[in-house]
Structures are given as C-alpha cells and as structure tokens.
C-alpha cells in the first residue's frame, strides 16, 4: 500500500513513454494524480505503516504532505492538456516534447512522493536531488536562450545547495554511529529522533546548519534562492504550479524533520535562531524585488519566496499552534499558487508575454480569467475567507504568544510592503483600459481551463472556513512535527 503513491505515477510515466501524448493519454496524468490523492487519504486513515523493505514509511506528517502533493498534482495535470494544446498551436511544442513532458512530470511527482514517504534522511536526500534533475528538463522545455539559462542556473545552484545537505547528512550519520546506532539506523527518522539526546552537540550543530541551508536552497529560502524566480518563470505553467505549490514544501518538510532531531539534541533555541534569520532574509529579498516587479510570473515566484519565509518563521516559533498553521499554510499556498500559475500560463499564452504592461486591462478583455487571477492574488495576500488568512493569523498569534514578537513584527512590516507591491502590479494587470491593438475575447480560447482554477479557489476558501475531516490528521501531524504532546491551542486557531 505504501508503495502505491510512488508506483502509480511511475506507471503513468511508462505509459507516456510507450504511447506518447495524445487525445486519450493527455488525461492519464490527472488520473494518476487523482489516484495518488485517493491513496493518500486511505493511508492517512490507515495510520502508520511501512513498505519496500523498510525504506518507505508513512505517518500522519508524511500522509498530510502526500495529500498536498496529490491535490496540487491534480490541479496541474488537469490544466496540462489545455496548456500543451495552446503551446502546440503557437509552435512551441511538438509531439516529442509533449511525450517527454508527460514522462518527466509523472517521474517528478513520483520523486516527490518518495521524498515524503522516505523512512530515512538518506532516501529523502536521494529523492529531492532526483526532483532537481527531472525538473531541469521541464524548466528548459522551450529550449530558448532564457529557458536554457534558467535550467542551467537551476541545476547548478540547487545541486550545490543540496550537496551541502549531503555533507550535513554525512555529519548526522557520523554523530549517530558514535552515539551507538548502527549505520542503517543512523539515518532513520524514528531512531534518530529517539536517540537524538545522545548525539554529539558539536558535530550535530554543523550538521543542522548544513541541512537547513541545503534543503533551504531547494525550498527557495535565502541565501540560496537565486535560481527560483528564473526557474519558476521559465517552466511551463503547470510545472511552475507543481514546483512552486508543492516541491518547495517537500523540501521544507525535510527541514521540519531535521528540526525534530535538532530540538532534542541541541535544544529548541539553535534551530529557532537559524530559521528566524533565514525567514526574515527571505521575506526581505521577496519584498525588495516585489516592489516595482514588471513580470507577473516572476512576481508569483518572489511571492513563493515570501510564503516559504513565513512557513520558516512558523516552524521557528515551533509550538503546536504555529506548526498547525504552518501545515495549513503549506496546503493553502499550494492551492492558491497553483491556481495563479495555471492562470498566468493562460494569460501569457493569450498575450504572448509575461510582462505586466502587456496585459493591462485584462478585466475588460477576459473577465473570467481576470476574476480567477484576482481572487487567487487576494488569497495569496492573506485575505479572508481563504485559508492563508487563517494560517497567517495563526503564525502571527503563536509568535507573539511565544515571546518572539521581535521577529514577527519586522515580518509583518515586510508583508505590508509585499501587499503594496503585488497590489500595484495586480491593479495594472486587471483594471484599467487595454492598450490598443490587442485582441479581445481571450476567454474564448480558455474553454475548459476554468475547472482547475475554480476547484483550487473553492478548496482554498473552504479550508479557510473549516478543516473538516482534515483536522484529526493535521493534529497528529503537528504532534510528530513538535515531537511532543499537542498544545490544546490548536482549537483556538479557528
């Protein structure tokens, strides 16, 4: 059962390799993502289990992440057929490119599923590095100068970042073996967390810094964030949705697991300080580059850096309320950002450019698309009823309650700057009058593209009102991430 979320997308990739991308197989990706989501829900209900000779293990935290992967993959795969059809119409993608798109996206989903299901830090590392290589070809999909440049920077910076994490892994293994664990147990999450008290603090400190910076590079956190705006703006829109909506969170999931070990071995203060510095730096970078941003896909990419910074801040605060909010934020951001990237792909295809000025007055020309995009931006800026409002409120409240107001206050100021920057660009894109000479009625070409947008926005809004059946899973996941009894404060988040 545990192996199904990995096997399903791999099987779909195999079918794409054999049959290529055509009218029938184009929906295969959505089918496999839907299956993955269903299995994730079943796994969440079944509780803990392991498979593949103990290499894979599922608990509440990994089941929750698997659900996030399933949801975002479903949205992205529902949008893919329409996106590729429009790409083919403009001569950007032939049948061969479409086939490799099918293969690589499915392998990419399988690698992310492997990452969150890994029983050990070692397997997790291998899977995360595999996502870099698989997505490199998706980023460079258009083979233009810009796409090639983005892909090159992406592979080099992420591989170097993740190499730091590998060195951190080696150090953890060294400390664990000297704490009396066997070589295999030395990287296993459960035995590491269980024996964290015996790890040598000097070595563990170096290891934690390397692991947070290394996985932070993949999670789009400063200081190794430079690849993100290039890669996310050049990748095909559904792939951007996957990379921004869920790959970043999968990398952050690794940091959450490392933090559990670090908090026992070194005390909560060490990882907290590290994460606060990284979080505030990421927010500052995002704020500085969102002001006056002229490219809407890059704007969305910098907004991802902002949200990962917020998530890191929540993890730094580290109590039950904060981590509940962090996990909810991961899902809410996944939904909102997928909607926006899928929408931005449509806008880019209709306008032929990703510049804010080229799509002025979208509201008049394509009201449906503009409404969806506008609502998505409101969700992203943390307005109710969308779930990002609830989770941001949770993080801020938890921060002040934990006496970390000195870290939360500058974050709030930076968020206000970001609201101003994004709001200004959104106003120019959606309102106002269209420049003359641009075709009207872009909505006509968008038939069918609306489904994932509406589904994503509705899901994000519903989550903002009620957690529904997700609540028990979220509570168990928080227990694992805080490595302690859950704080009753979770009830107060809502």
């Amino acid at each position, binding site marked *: 059962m545990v192996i199904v979320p990995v096997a399903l997308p791999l099987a779909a990739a195999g079918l794409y390799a054999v049959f290529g991308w055509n009218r029938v197989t184009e929906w295969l990706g959505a089918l496999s993502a839907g299956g993955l989501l269903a299995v994730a829900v079943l796994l969440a209900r079944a509780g803990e289990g392991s498979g593949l000779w103990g290499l894979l293990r599922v608990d509440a935290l990994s089941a929750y992440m698997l659900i996030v992967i399933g949801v975002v993959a479903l949205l992205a795969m529902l949008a893919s057929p329409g996106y590729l059809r429009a790409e083919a119409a403009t001569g950007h993608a032939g049948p061969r490119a479409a086939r490799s798109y099918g293969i690589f996206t499915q392998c990419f989903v399988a690698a992310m599923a492997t990452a969150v299901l890994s029983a050990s830090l070692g397997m997790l*590392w291998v899977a995360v590095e595999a996502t870099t290589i698989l997505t490199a070809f998706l980023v460079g999909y258009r083979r233009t100068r810009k796409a090639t*440049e983005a892909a090159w920077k992406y*592979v080099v910076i992420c591989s170097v970042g993740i190499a730091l994490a590998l060195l951190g892994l080696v150090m953890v293994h060294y400390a664990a073996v000297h704490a009396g664990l066997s070589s295999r147990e030395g990287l296993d999450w459960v035995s590491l967390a269980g024996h964290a008290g015996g790890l040598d603090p000097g070595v563990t400190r170096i290891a934690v810094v390397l692991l947070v910076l290394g996985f932070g590079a993949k999670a789009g956190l400063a200081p190794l964030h430079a690849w993100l705006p290039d890669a996310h703006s050049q990748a095909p829109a559904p792939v951007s949705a996957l990379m921004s909506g869920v790959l970043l969170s999968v990398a952050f999931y690794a940091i959450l697991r490392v933090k559990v070990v670090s908090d026992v071995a070194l005390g909560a203060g060490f990882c907290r300080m590290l994460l606060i510095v990284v979080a505030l730096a990421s927010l500052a970078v995002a704020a500085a580059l969102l002001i006056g941003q002229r490219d809407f896909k890059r704007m969305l990419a910098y907004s991802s850096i902002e949200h990962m910074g917020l998530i890191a801040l929540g993890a730094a605060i580290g109590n039950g309320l904060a981590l509940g909010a962090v996990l909810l934020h991961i899902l809410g951001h996944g939904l909102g950002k997928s909607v926006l990237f899928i929408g931005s792909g449509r806008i880019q295809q209709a306008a032929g450019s990703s510049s804010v000025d080229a799509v002025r007055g979208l509201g008049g020309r394509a009201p449906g698309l503009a409404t969806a995009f506008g609502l998505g931006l409101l969700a992203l800026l943390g307005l109710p009823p969308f779930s990002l409002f609830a989770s941001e409120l949770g993080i801020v409240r938890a921060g002040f309650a934990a006496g970390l107001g000195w870290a939360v206050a500058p974050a709030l100021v930076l968020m206000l700057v970001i609201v101003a920057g994004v709001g200004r660009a959104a106003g120019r894109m959606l309102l106002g009058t269209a420049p003359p000479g641009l075709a009207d009625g872009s909505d006509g070409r968008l038939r069918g593209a609306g489904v994932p947008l509406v589904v994503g926005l509705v899901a994000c809004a519903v989550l903002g009102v009620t957690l529904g059946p997700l609540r028990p899973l979220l509570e168990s996941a928080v227990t694992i991430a805080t490595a302690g009894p859950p704080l009753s404060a979770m009830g107060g988040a809502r």
Partner: protein
Amino acid sequence: MTDPVYVQALDLACGAFLLTGVLVLWRRDLAAIIWLFGLQGVALGALIAVRGLHEADVELTVLGLGVGLLRAVLLPCLMRRALAAGDEGREARPHVSVAASLLVTAVLTMLAYAVSQPLVRLAPTPATQAVPIALTVLLVGFFVLVTRRRALSQVVGFLLMDNAITAAAFLTTTGVPLVVELGVSLDVLLAVLALQVLTTRMRAAFGGTDLDELRELHD
C-alpha cells in the same frame, strides 16, 4: 593491514586527493582539468579501499573499486565527450588569477581546519584527522564553481565538491548505508548527464559555453 602501513597508505591517498584538487585551480587547459579530476577519482577509490582493507571489510573494498570506476573513468569520459563536441579547449580568463586562487586556497585550508575541530574531537583517529582535507577540497570545488567561466569548469567544481563529501563520508565512518551511497552515485551521474545536455543546448542557443553570456534573466 598493520597500523603504520594503514596510516601511511591513508595519508598518501588523502595527500593525492588534496593535491589533485588544488592543481585544478592551477591549470586552465580543460582537458588537463578533466585528467586531474580523474586522478582524484583514483585517489578517492584508493582511500576507500584502504579503509576497507584495514577494517577487513570486503564490501567496503569493493565499494572503493566501484566509486573509483565511476569517478575516475565514467565521469571523466562523459566530460571528455562534452569537451570534444565543442571547440573550446581552454578556460577563458578566469575572474580570479591563478596566483590569487592559490593564495585563496591557503585561506580556505585554514578555514577547513578551523571548522572541522569538533568533527576531529569526537573521535580522533587517523581517518577523522584527515577530514579537514576533504573539507578543503569541498571549498576549493566551490571556489572553482563561482570563479570559472566555462560551463565544463563549473561541472568540475560541482564534482570536486561531491568527491569531497564522499571522502568525508568514508573518513568519518565506514560510509553511509549502501543503498544511500548507490542513490547518491546515481544522482550525481544523472546530474552530470543533465548538465551535458544543457551544455549542448547552451552551445546551440548562445554559440558557446561562456557563462558570462547568461544574462537574459534578471530583475
């Protein structure tokens, strides 16, 4: 293997490992850099095999041979193919001169020794005392990565870092679990293949592999 022989063999392998890493900074001829990288792969394989012989661990010795094969034969072969596809035999003028680079290496070495103090203190054996060497090569690799201008030099920089991490793994313990080591090796191989494909595309799109030409994307 007796202890004095083991220590000497280990130090010899580590010395060769460090020397080949530093020499990469000295040469500007790309073919020579690939050759040096291959030699470093041999030193790394020997280092692991010496550890295996000392621990009387057959699996570790065989792993040393495998790692040596991957890093001394397979990866250099791939890079030579990428080099032959283009007509740029030499590194363009690097951003930092060779003399300055070697001075920086001295600083990096001291940094590596300072950082690895806690690592040596945990278990001061002949092997862990060589960990600073691995960290020096890691920093040298990073330095190559940020100061060189050819795509292939960046790949070598990345691989130097990876060699260094593998060396650190086998110096601190007898290596990470086999399944992880295999996964890491596969990932590295695939990363180099991916970068090779991207180099070909770069040549088609930009007419060369000078990374200073990558200036299309900025804010």
